[in-house]
């Protein structure tokens, strides 16, 4: 199925019976599909006069306790922001699909991920967050759309499914049997707050769906209540996928379609012996910070790949807390990064050494020189010893010694990178001492080498 159609059917199977929307490429198959399917299941499809109208219809249907969805693409989602903010304030559950296209403005109709800030930072006015789910395949788009309805009901919040033009347009095999007739999670609270025209009771008092709190004391309390809700979501609902992280020295962070392209690049780099792994955030908010921090034990560098000029990279940097460099590769405006481009970037990252590694290389060079010096000394003593030096066994021993030193240096690198500066200082001293051992002439050689590097 096409991603857009799969999302629409998944919503219906999850009990969505109201869809309000306004056409925009590249998500038009969602309303098109809904217009056909909703009447078949006794639901309501309505093409509104504008995006603003659509989101306010969602507000109304959600306020009455129905499972409701709207979908749009970037410029249309911008128009919906006022309504989303109201829906958050009034704590109304609903699902919003954004098939992101290139921006700003009307932009292009090709895929993009440049609405990351808008989606994860709230987007509309006021102090709020909203769960954002980013599918990486058509099958996952189905699962996440259905989960979105449960999440929305559980926390009384709008939930955004953030795809891009590729996810919407791509056709992949989908197991719809698994998704068929998906019932709401059994432990969801009853919607006693919903304005259904019911007679007020103790369990379900008079329902008022509203986001206006004139008294700042009361509004602050309301905001703190929302904040407590966000804390609970952060604690319980964060999702991500880990790939090839066990020994990953470069960790890619990418989501959605970009993660798939990055996955191909990762596999290519692995074939070349470059230790690349990947974290794919599935929830963009809450962001899998802890999972990213957990990779610090092997990761030397991070690469954030996005179809934007760099938005999620901020969250990656916050997660890494400045402990490692975080680099970026992205295309924007509807352009999609290619596997080759990402491989090239990863190769250049693998080639370029960090400052610490450079220091260790220098140390290594000094050790090499010390070994050379030793060899020369031996040579001057006599032919026999020279033979000894050239003897394969001796060469091998020297190599072993160098390897061991290398191993030590590797361990030192880890320690140093983790902030064990003492060790670094010790290493510096060792380096200094070694340099001292080597004659002035050889030191110059060393400097030449550095220049070449």
């Amino acid at each position, binding site marked *: 199925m096409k991603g857009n159609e799969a999302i629409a059917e998944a919503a219906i199977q999850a009990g969505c019976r109201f869809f309000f929307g306004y056409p925009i490429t*590249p998500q038009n198959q969602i309303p098109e599909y809904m217009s056909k399917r909703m009447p078949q299941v006794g639901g309501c499809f309505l093409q509104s006069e504008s995006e603003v109208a659509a989101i306010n219809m969602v507000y109304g249907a959600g306020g009455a306790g129905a499972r409701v969805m709207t979908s749009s693409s970037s410029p249309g989602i911008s128009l919906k922001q006022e309504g989303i903010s109201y829906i958050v304030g009034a704590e109304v559950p609903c699902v919003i699909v954004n098939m992101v296209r290139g921006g700003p403005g009307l932009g292009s*109709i090709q895929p993009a991920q440049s609405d990351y800030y808008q989606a994860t930072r709230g987007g509309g006015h006021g102090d709020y967050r909203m769960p954002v789910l980013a599918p990486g395949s058509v099958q996952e788009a189905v699962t996440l759309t259905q989960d979105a309805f449960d999440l929305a009901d559980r926390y009384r919040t709008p939930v955004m499914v953030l795809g891009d033009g*590729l996810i919407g347009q791509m056709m*992949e095999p989908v197991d719809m049997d698994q998704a068929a007739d998906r019932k709401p999670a059994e432990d969801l609270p009853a919607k006693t707050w919903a304005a259904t025209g019911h007679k007020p009771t103790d369990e379900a008092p008079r329902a008022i769906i509203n986001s206006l709190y004139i008294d700042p004391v009361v509004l602050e309390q309301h905001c703190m209540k929302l904040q407590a809700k966000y804390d609970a979501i952060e604690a319980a609902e964060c999702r991500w996928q880990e790939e090839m992280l066990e020994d990953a020295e470069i960790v890619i962070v990418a989501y959605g379609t970009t993660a*798939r392209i*990055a996955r191909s690049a990762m596999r290519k780099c692995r074939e070349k012996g470059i230790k690349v792994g990947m974290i794919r955030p599935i929830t963009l908010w809450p962001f899998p910070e802890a999972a990213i921090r957990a990779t610090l034990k092997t990761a030397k560098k991070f690469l954030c790949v996005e179809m934007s000029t760099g938005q999620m990279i901020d969250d990656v940097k916050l997660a890494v807390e400045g402990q490692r460099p975080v680099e970026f590769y992205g295309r924007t405006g509807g352009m*999609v990064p*290619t596997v*080759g481009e990402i491989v090239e970037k990863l190769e250049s990252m693998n080639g370029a050494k960090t400052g610490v590694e450079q220091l260790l290389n220098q140390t290594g060079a000094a050790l090499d020189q010390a070994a050379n010096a030793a060899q020369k000394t031996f040579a001057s003593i006599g032919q026999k010893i020279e033979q000894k030096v050239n003897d394969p066994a001796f060469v091998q021993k020297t190599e072993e010694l160098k390897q061991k030193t290398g191993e030590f240096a590797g361990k030192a690198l880890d320690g140093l990178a983790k902030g064990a500066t003492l060790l670094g200082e010790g290493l510096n001293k060792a380096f200094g001492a070694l340099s001292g051992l080597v004659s002035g002439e050889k030191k110059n050689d060393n400097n030449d080498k550095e220049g070449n590097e």
Partner: protein
Amino acid sequence: MEKQFLIAGFGGQGVLLIGQLIAKAAMREDFEVSWMPSYGPEMRGGEANCAVVISDEEIGSPLVTEPPVLVAMNKPSLAKFMPKMAPGGILLYNASLIEDVELRDDVTVIPVPCNQIAEELGNQRTANMVMLGAVLGATRFVGADSLKETLREWLGEKRAAMLDINWQAIERGQALNA
């Protein structure tokens, strides 16, 4: 094992369908598949293309930027995508519509007179099926039975009578480089 296809031509030539049938037939043989159409302000007569990836593991990129197999149904598509082909790839082009072009010598070139064969069969609309058959013959991405079953399923009961003519077209294409 991963196989990538890029199929391009005029809108209306059935290029998206060629891709869909390749993907569906491979799905029938339990491969992972993806089908990604170009989309945009397109129309009949405009340019259309789709990327198909078949793999025995989870598919990474659904896009095909350096096609190992390129199907060009018309001249503009050939001009656009042939330079992007991976060396050693397979180029199948519609020889009925593409003449007098300089072809790359580092790829296997298979001319397929799609429209001519379709005309011989008495149904111009099977030109894309001739090409699909040629792709099957050149790459053997699935067994012929899988493709036939896929076609039967796609035609459905309403158009079941069309199976024969379409399958003939596929067989003619396949025979070109079997």
